[in-house]
């Protein structure tokens, strides 16, 4: 498992969605996660420390946890299946730990507000690299294959 930070947030004109870029401290691993506009706003506000006049959805999420005295221990991006990322939010409530299924966008938006670390499993990093490789292979033209023939 590798701890990562949100290092970038950008608009993708091809999909009309937003991309959250996660990177590890050593800058060796990079993970782009596509998210919708509301989640991108939530992440952006948290990154910039912007407080909105009324609580937004993820602020409410954090407040519900605070009110119940539940603590976000960490958030983990656990899997990648058919282009969809899966995440888990780890909570401490009373004496027990809970693990709740979530979209990575919501998990990250919450983690930023709770100042909790974001981790990505090695499995996800490996799967993401494989998919990029496949995409690169798809883009190769037939002539590329014969390039280095003597």
């Amino acid at each position, binding site marked *: 498992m590798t701890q990562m930070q949100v290092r970038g947030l950008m608009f993708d004109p091809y999909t009309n969605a937003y991309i959250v870029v996660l990177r590890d401290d050593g800058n060796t691993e990079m993970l782009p996660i596509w998210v919708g506009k509301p989640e991108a706003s939530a992440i952006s506000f948290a990154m910039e420390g912007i407080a909105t006049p009324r609580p937004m959805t993820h602020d409410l999420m954090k407040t*519900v946890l605070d009110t119940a005295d539940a603590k976000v221990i960490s958030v983990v991006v656990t899997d990648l299946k058919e282009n969809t990322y899966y995440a888990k939010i780890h909570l401490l409530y009373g004496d027990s730990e809970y693990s709740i299924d979530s979209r990575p966008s919501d998990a990250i938006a919450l983690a930023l507000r709770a100042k909790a670390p974001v981790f990505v499993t090695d499995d996800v990093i490996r799967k993401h690299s494989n998919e990029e490789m496949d995409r690169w292979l798809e883009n190769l033209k037939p002539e590329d294959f014969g390039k280095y023939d003597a």
Partner: protein
Amino acid sequence: MTVQGVWADASPNAESQVVLLQDEAKTSTLPIWVGTAEGTAIRLALEGIIPPRPLSHDLIRNLTEHLSLTVSKVVVTDVKNNTYYASIYLCSKQSELTVDSRPSDAIALALRTKSPIYATRDVLDRQVPETVEPWIKRLNAKELGGAA
């Protein structure tokens, strides 16, 4: 009150949708302007559509379930400067706690937890009739089989 529907508001803000609340006796109608994301979340819950992955309000509902918290009710409590305020009442084993919220989030959550939605008399009394009337007309037209 119950949610009668979510409509796109043609004016003035393209981002806005309107959630219409009405009491059983149909004596009071409360239109609340919400953003696109919240409007969608409310519409999905109304239509009983379960998305493949949990959306933000599904996650909040799941969190309350895991923490053994019940949403006993949500209340639209106040209106100040055209902004509505709401409270979400959460019951744990020990106590009842209230959380400040936008009405849009409160309604989106209440529909998922099947909790009752209320509005205070004060909020209903402070409405401007001109704002409400067009929406009452729309609701009535819908009931008579007209287009919403």
